[in-house]
């Protein structure tokens, strides 16, 4: 799957374009002058250290926070998202890191929360069937969709959250750490799913700390550092380049650690020679 990155994919039309987005919480500037483009059929990975502003950016795009300044262009039109439902109605679906599920409701109720079929006489049967279809597409291991979220494991909750984001057939999906809580097989399933979503012509923004996952699916890697753009890379960029951009220095704890190991390795090799 990585060989795609060697031939830059033909970029689809521009789905999302951010220009000069800033967001401050009191004296703290969480985001400063962020520019970001996402095309249809493209996976953009957002990487950065803790506190780089990744989650703030995602929440801004999801309508949870409103930017202090800057413009958001979605499908060619300048938009302002005053609340999460505005973002959902535009076609931006988000899977939050803190999964934003209601633990006291069952799986079906969570997947359809705010989008129930037949509001005045809920169509439980149709909603249950659709839930099973969505979950089966994700190869989910959910024992029953009629149990409350409180009794599911972290990975199962993640699957429910992703299934919910797909319900509305969005144009752009934001995934905040989608694989953080998942097992090996489920991680592979989610990465497969991300590719399937991309091949359907949707734009995907994915936050991850796992460079392996990022390289596996991303078409472009956008690095944030201390709330600013700090370079755009392709998946074949070296680990050193990426880590350098993330930490902001060629000489960083990761490179020092790598260097130390290399030296030890050389010494051992030298000793044997």
């Amino acid at each position, binding site marked *: 799957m990585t060989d795609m990155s060697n031939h830059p994919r033909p970029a689809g039309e521009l789905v999302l374009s951010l220009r000069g987005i800033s967001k401050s919480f009191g004296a703290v500037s969480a985001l400063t002058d962020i520019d970001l483009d996402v095309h249809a059929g493209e996976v953009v990975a957002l990487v950065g250290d803790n506190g780089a502003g990744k989650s703030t950016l995602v929440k801004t795009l*999801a309508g*949870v926070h409103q930017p202090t300044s800057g413009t958001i262009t979605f499908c060619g039109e300048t938009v302002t998202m005053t*609340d*999460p*439902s505005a973002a*959902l*109605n535009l076609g931006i679906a*988000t899977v*939050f890191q803190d*999964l*934003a*599920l*209601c*633990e*006291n*409701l069952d799986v079906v*109720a969570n997947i359809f*929360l*705010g*989008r*129930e079929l037949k*509001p*005045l*006489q*809920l169509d439980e*049967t*149709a909603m*249950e*069937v659709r839930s*099973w279809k969505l979950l089966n597409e994700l190869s989910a*291991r*959910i*024992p*029953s*969709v*009629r*149990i*409350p*979220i*409180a*009794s599911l494991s972290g990975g199962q909750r993640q699957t429910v959250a992703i299934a*919910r984001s797909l319900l509305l057939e969005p144009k752009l999906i934001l995934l905040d750490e989608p694989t953080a809580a998942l097992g090996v097989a489920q991680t592979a399933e989610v990465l497969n799913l991300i590719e399937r979503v991309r091949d359907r012509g949707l734009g995907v923004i994915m936050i991850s700390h796992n460079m392996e996952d990022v390289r596996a699916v991303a078409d472009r890697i956008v690095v944030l550092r201390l709330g600013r753009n700090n370079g755009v890379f392709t998946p074949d960029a070296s680990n050193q380049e990426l880590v350098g951009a993330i930490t902001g220095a060629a000489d960083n704890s990761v490179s020092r650690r790598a260097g130390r190991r290399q030296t030890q390795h050389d010494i051992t090799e030298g000793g044997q020679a």
Partner: protein
Amino acid sequence: MTDPAKTNATATIMLDRSDVRVKHETGVGGAVRAFVDRVRSGDLGSLPVVVGLIIIWTVFASLNPIFLSSNNLVNLLFDCSTVGVIALGIVCVLMVGEIDLSVGSISGFASAVVGTLWVNQGWPVVLAILAAVAVGGLIGSIYALLFNRLGMPSFVSTLSGLLAVLGMQLYILGSTGSINLPYGSAMVNFGQMLVMPRPLAHIVAALPGIIILLTGIRTIAHRKGANLSAPSLGSVVVRAAAITIVLELIVLYLNQDRGVPWMFGLFVGLVMLMNYALTRTQWGRSMTAVGGNREAARRAGINVKGIYTSAFVLCSMLAALGGVLAASRLASASQQAGTGDVNLNAIAAAVIGGTSLFGGRGNAYSALLGIIVIQSIANGLTLLDLSSSLRYMITGAVLAIAVIVDSLARRSRVSHGRA
């Protein structure tokens, strides 16, 4: 090449039965086993309040046989209806994890509004009642405004409302202090005497069973059609029959005296309407979601402020309606209306019935069950000629026990992986 028998077998596996790790109970025996399992894991539902009610009734019946007479039970139902309607409103605000401490004052104020407009100003009684309920809704929308716009905790805003609304009640009643509602008027008859004709009461008591049977059969057909597991027809029939038999026996017993009060019929009708709204509509789903996780509800695109507003407004309107019913029961609108233990009885009823104080858990029937418990205690102690001091202490103890049972059950639910 695929084995046709195997393909066929896969196709017949029901959508919700494909996970082999889950145990599924079937049939009537299975339903009973599932119920026992649920109770053991701490999902008690209405069980504690039903058990508590049986204990309370046994004790009072052994102390004074009059307690269980038809005549006394009809009185009990009349008395339940007024505070019960208020408790139904409390269920609404508790569902979203808020509280309204001013329901007693609102009910008293509503009775004063009806008395003033109807008796003193000569308005038609229906208009006066509508005006009182509308005033209740207005007070609720003020609480919602304070909560949504200014972030004022409902605990504080309704506590100040408790005083302010009581002040308004005293103000409009003026120096006379109380207004007598004319005996013989439709409103007072409704609160004191009107009962359903006997055959009609039996027909009404048969309705829940019929509804359960019809919706059950329809659900089975829908779920089978959608390749989902369905409850067996037998279990639906047994449930419907059991409920019908119990209700018909109750009606038969009450009919030996005056019969089923219309006021109680109104209360139960409101409870069933609220139950439908909370469990079968998008609004009810949103109420539960906001009570369970407000931020998750907001991110799902739910109009959270609108949901809070609807809860506060509905609670105050039901409180006002309860006040109107109380006025018709007492045939007066006085300065004492809605004071004393009305407030806490309404809140205690909702909690004793099983609605959580912390939001996101509860149902409309808790108002019905809880108020029957509280009125049984009040009524039984009155029959024993005990003073209200003892009544307060015992009601307080019952409330404490109810909350203890709820929190113990919650702990058990957590360890058994239920919400």
